């Protein structure tokens, strides 16, 4: 089990468009994310960071190459199986939080369980446990997303991403919409999660954020380049 990576990309290429309009967003990318690793992927806008994150998150499929999550190959044709993998193994944190405004924070945190349909296995964390994990007071649980600050909303989004006890946490520019103070608070949360053994992949173009990661790789023109 130790040898099975949390996520694996092998010679992965992702192309969009047809014929002359064909554009390669990822070109022969190889990446191995070890369990418990905190990995930062740095690169300018349009370098393919988010595309790679979507492939890792089973939200998109590679044109060629192999993608594995927790030792499970991500099927290209079977949307239902990809969705199952995503629901069970992946936690997503978006730049714009994407909390559902009609629901309370508590209901937002319960949402992943609604779709998980897990009948056995370890008990999933409660909203109270999740909210404490991201250093927020319990009283926010009964508020609506429009009643909390941006920094709090992103921490709630992280808590929601942890609700299904994921194998890997994928974060797309998690501090992109936050000021420096809130960005630091978010990174404190990631540091804490990493110290507890969580596997985290953060894509960012902010080198300061990347400094918190154990490993940093850079991406340019759809290719992973150096380990930084």
């Amino acid at each position, binding site marked *: 089990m130790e040898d099975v990576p949390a996520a694996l990309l092998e010679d992965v290429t992702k192309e969009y468009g047809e014929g002359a309009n064909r554009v390669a967003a990822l070109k022969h990318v190889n990446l191995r994310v070890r369990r418990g690793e905190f990995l930062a992927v740095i690169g300018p806008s349009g370098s393919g960071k988010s595309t790679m994150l*979507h492939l890792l*998150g089973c*939200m*998109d499929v590679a044109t060629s190459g192999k993608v594995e999550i927790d030792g499970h190959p991500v099927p290209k044709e079977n*949307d*239902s199986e990809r*969705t*199952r993998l*995503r*629901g*069970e193994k992946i936690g*997503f944190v*978006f730049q*714009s939080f*994407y909390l*559902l405004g*009609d*629901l309370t924070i*508590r*209901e937002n945190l*319960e*949402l*992943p*369980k*609604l*779709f*998980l349909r897990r009948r056995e296995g370890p008990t999933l964390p409660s909203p109270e446990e999740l909210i404490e994990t991201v250093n927020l007071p319990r009283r926010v649980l009964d508020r609506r997303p429009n009643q909390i600050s941006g920094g709090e909303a992103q921490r709630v989004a992280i808590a*929601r*991403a942890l609700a*299904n006890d994921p194998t890997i946490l994928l974060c797309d520019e998690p501090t992109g919409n936050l000021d420096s103070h809130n960005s630091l608070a978010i990174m404190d949360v990631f540091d804490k999660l990493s110290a507890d053994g969580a596997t985290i992949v953060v894509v960012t173009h902010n080198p300061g954020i990347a400094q918190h990661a154990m490993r940093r790789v850079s991406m340019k023109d759809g290719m992973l380049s150096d380990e930084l």
Partner: protein
Amino acid sequence: MTSRSTIAFRYMWRQKTRTGFVIATYAATVAVTLLITSAVVGEENYFLNEVSTVGANWIYVYPGNGNSPSIYPLTERAAGDIFRNVSHVSAVAPVMAVGLSVPSWGTATSEDIVGTNSSVQGIFGYQVVAGAFNINWNGNFSVPLPVVMGYSEWTGHALSVGQMVSGSVVSLTGTGISTRPVNMVITGLLAPRGSLGGTDLDTLMFIPVQALENLTNSLSLTYIFVSASDSKYVAQVADDISVLLLNLHKQYDDFTVTSEESLVQLVQNELNQFTSIISLVEFTLLLLSAMSVFVVMMMAVKDRRREVGVMRAIGARRGDIMAQFLLEASLMSVGGMIVGVGMGSAIAGYLKANAGGFYANLLPNPLDLGTYFVELLCILFAVGFLFSMAPAYQASRLEAVEALRSL
């Protein structure tokens, strides 16, 4: 625990106008359909009930038939011949009906004056609530005519029951009738019978047929009602009456002989024709409801791409998304149906209690409509569900990446 219904209710609450639109459309459809159906079924029930109170063995004769007009009138003599010469006849009531005004009680009221004999009570099973059904007359206009009155809303307001049967003398006037007032004495008062097809069945007055013949200077009857002694003789009696009348009318087939069964069939055919017209109205309303849910759900899909994207990103399958949208459409349609049933029942109840006339036979309790009521709700639900399938399917086909990227 968050459930699909929590998400559905929260969204519906946020989109109150759209939710209200669908609910209102469904409610209107259900309410209007219930009202129309309540009226038709109410009328049918009333008619069948009336027929059943008359007894099962009657035969109904009237002048003319579908192909030719009346050449020879139906007369009291023909009625007498039927009674005397046709076997298995237990009673015959000649009926001459005219609409006249009865002005004696201060305000003139239009009454159906029925010239007949006392046998009509037995044939139609009229219930007398005061006095007796006695219109036997000696042919002398110098003494008041004995009459039996229906207890209509108007007569009920004009006179008390006691006044009506204690020898009140009223006079009768009208077009085509003698200008001299005719004094009458009310000998009996009928139990109220309500209305049929918008006609108040209680604005009627029975007087001796000879008196009406004299007053109208006509021997032409409107109907002859005949009661067979047993249901097994109805067809035979009807045939024998036809033979007898053909002889009387020099072999001219200028009359119609029909039985209760034929009349029920005739009325039911007419109701069926009416029902096919209202079915068209109901279908139009049904289509409007379905379109309302379709349009609102399409708008919801457009508005909620991000929400769908987020749900897909955190593990919702296509089936989950489809189920979510179908649930919301179903909740709105069911909500509309509940409101519609309440509205329809309340309006029907109000009309029945206050409007009278045609509305008196409405069935405010939807359960009285039996399986039709269940069928209506099932069809409405099914159509709404069907029309929300396309938007729900469209939402379920959204890819998480595309849905999130499109913002």
